[in-house]
């Protein structure tokens, strides 16, 4: 027996804790993270809905009014509400993380993160109002 058998016997014996499949429900911050990631489903779904709008426009007034009817069903309203909430969450998280990706400088002065977030939010609100106003006055 080698004279150092005692330690060889115990080394290396590291303990590894496996990560559970549902790791993301263990902490509130991870839940928020996974919800943020799941907003992409709403993004995708509504992009497809937009495409359906366009398709209905091509197919003529009849198809379009069918679509309008479909949109007024409670199911559609619920789904749209969920999508809206998801997208609000998406927009807010997206803009709050914007300063992580870009630093803007004016001369030597680096624009503080809060200001970048603020400017994005303002632009967002502005765009939303313009689009809303266009739709109403069209």
């Amino acid at each position, binding site marked *: 027996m080698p004279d150092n058998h005692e330690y060889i016997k115990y080394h290396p014996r590291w303990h590894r804790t496996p990560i559970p499949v549902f790791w993301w429900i263990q902490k509130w911050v991870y839940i928020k993270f996974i919800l943020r*990631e799941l907003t992409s489903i709403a*993004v*995708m779904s509504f992009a497809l809905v937009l495409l359906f709008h366009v398709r209905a426009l091509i197919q003529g*007034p009849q198809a379009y009014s069918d679509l*309008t009817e479909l949109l007024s069903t409670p199911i559609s309203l619920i789904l749209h509400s969920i999508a809206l909430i998801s997208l609000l969450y998406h927009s807010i998280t997206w803009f709050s993380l914007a300063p992580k990706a870009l630093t803007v400088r004016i001369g030597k002065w680096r624009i503080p993160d809060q200001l970048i977030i603020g400017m994005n939010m303002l632009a967002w609100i502005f765009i939303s109002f313009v689009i809303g106003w266009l739709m109403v006055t069209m």
Partner: protein
Amino acid sequence: MRRHIEPFWWALFSSGGTLAAFFLPVLIFIMGIAIPLGWIESPGYEKLFALVSNLHIRVFLFSLISLSLFHWAHRFRFTLYDGLQLKHLNRLIAVLCYGSAITGTLMTGYILIIFSSH
């Protein structure tokens, strides 16, 4: 130096995310909630048709829809990897996600092109 395709997907993901963040909430609100509930009056078929006939609008719609799909494809790919620990299905998931987004983009392109011939 090996060139990775990853920056390409990421660029699509982040431009899609940005467009979606700016435009989608208000569009959902108006088209999916306010108009169906009658809070806002629908502009009507004719006006909308005219609107979409505008080339600029169509280019915009194309970018918005297609990039949103890529945004989803990229994000969802990682959600599947990490959230469900499906890393070993890496290839398959990537093909499915980006494949769907590419198909969606082709469809969008097709529909918007035939729109102009109406």
